[in-house]
């Protein structure tokens, strides 16, 4: 035979690449990559060789956010933001629905995980000095994400509509209403009235699941874009960054989670 028949693998690769190439061709700007190229670049871009597990905290926080978003959307399918049925609908989710306890638990504990990861990520960035030029803007955006994340916690806390939720929210809102000058107006705006009333729950629900998550998603997008645009910073003690050669033999290439580098292969 003159021509070899293409192998199954080649055919499969072709099959997978065809729609991707189709998409790429239609989303790319001349001279730049399109959607597929962009995602490829995002996933396989070069990062400094001396980064550590500490650098994964941001991705971990992003994962926590995605878990919150997905479980939140599913919970919203069963939750009823009305003073007369909110508590009962939460009880229904937890006790009656299949795996409801799990999804609600993921959302409830994942909220804490998200905040904890934000703080750890923030601490890593702070201790590594990674907030310095040219990354100040990303620090500011990150601080906004932290504030919005905590607001998510505040507004979400009322939704179970039990005694803890109710009185914690009373205290939280009144605490903010003691702010000078604008405080007396802030409280009613938050609650939809001078006290927690029939509109408060729906208001908090809207803020918790539409307004703030939307803002968070936008800010996270901006945050990631700047990370990719500027690049990941090396640790302050990085010899390569300081212009010195790496001491010892060059580090063995790492292959990620599948085949991590052997212990001691990398030396500083």
């Amino acid at each position, binding site marked *: 035979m003159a021509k070899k028949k293409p192998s199954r693998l080649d055919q499969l690769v072709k099959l997978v690449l065809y729609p991707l190439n189709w998409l790429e061709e239609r989303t790319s700007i001349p001279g730049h990559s399109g959607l597929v190229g962009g995602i490829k670049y995002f996933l396989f871009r070069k990062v400094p060789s001396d980064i550590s597990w500490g650098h994964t905290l941001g991705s971990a926080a992003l994962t926590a956010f995605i878990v919150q978003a997905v479980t939140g959307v599913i919970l919203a399918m069963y939750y009823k933001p009305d*003073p*007369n049925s909110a508590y009962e609908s939460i009880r229904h989710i937890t006790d009656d629905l299949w795996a409801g306890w799990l999804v609600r638990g993921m959302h409830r504990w994942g909220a804490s995980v998200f905040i904890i990861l934000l703080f750890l990520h923030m601490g890593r960035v702070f201790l590594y000095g990674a907030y310095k030029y040219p990354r100040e803007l990303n620090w500011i955006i990150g601080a906004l994400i932290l504030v919005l994340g905590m607001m998510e916690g505040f507004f979400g806390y009322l939704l179970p509509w039990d005694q803890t939720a109710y*009185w914690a929210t*009373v*205290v939280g*809102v*009144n*605490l903010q*209403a*003691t702010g*000078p*000058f604008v*405080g*007396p*107006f802030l*409280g*009613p*705006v938050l*609650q*939809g*009235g*001078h*006290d*927690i*009333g*029939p*509109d408060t729950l729906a208001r908090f629900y809207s803020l918790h699941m539409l307004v703030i998550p939307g803002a968070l998603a936008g800010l996270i997008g901006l945050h990631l874009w700047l990370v990719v645009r500027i690049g990941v910073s090396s640790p302050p003690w990085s010899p390569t960054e300081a212009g010195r050669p790496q001491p010892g033999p060059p580090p063995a290439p790492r292959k990620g989670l599948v085949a991590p580098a052997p212990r001691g292969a990398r030396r500083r």
Partner: protein
Amino acid sequence: MDPHEGQGTSHEPTPTVWPVGFAVGIACIFVGLIISKIVLVVGVVIAAIFGFLWIRDATKPFRHEEAPAEAEPPPAPRQPPGARAAGPEPGEGEIVRYPRSKFLEATTLGLGALIGVVVTAPVLGFTVLPPFIKQGHPKVDVGAIEDFPENKFVIATYLLKPADGEVSRRTAYIRNNGFLGESPSFTIVSNRCVHLGCPVQVNGLPLADETKTERTAGNNVVTRIPTAAAAGFGCPCHGGQYDTEGNRTAGPPVRALDRYEFEIVDGRLLLGKTFAVSEVDGTAADAKIHTYPLAGPGQHVDGPEAWLYPVQPPR
């Protein structure tokens, strides 16, 4: 830059606002034809005036008048190349930017901004204003005077707005002080802690066995629980303590407990608005109450700290 430069024969009309007024006049005429003669006349007048001005403007070159000064720099002194106001000299095949295109740019941006404001303002108002509008509530009938034994606090719970359901349930501590002269005297204290709004409790013994539930005017459901040996009030959240007049005795609260206005109609006790109290001198019927307009929990009503809350929203 001057569009007429080097084209003495150009009959380009200069940019002008008169057609806008003319168009308004025409619109007025059409509206007037349908709804009112006055509007029609106004429209005719507007259209006539602006039409005249427009024609006068447009025919200026024919009447050998001096070209009107434009917003753009005058044509005469040639600016040095690169000067911003003059703009770059158009090269072969380049697009020449006429003042009119700038006018259109400004108009588009301006109209866009206007539309943005017109759309956003009601939405923003809808979000922010309802909490301040129609916040009042009707007076609440909490029972007959005889239901309140003298010199004992009764825990009364009621619905602030029965239509809103249980979420509007409130609690007042009511003590009948007997008579002050000829009129009955009551001490009616709100259970909202003036630290951060938790529910204060009676430091005493609620007599749950003697609880009475009554359906009163306006489809309200009122419960009354008498108490024995009430020695004041305490808040479970952060430990605020008050005496029997509502004066702060310990803990973080910033003033005395809020009180209710009340009136007695046909022997029934009606609760009105709540008001803030800085402190109470004396006790029971002889008490002198230092009253202030209602403020949120944690907000000072007297002393220099009150300057932090100069304006209170309408209630």
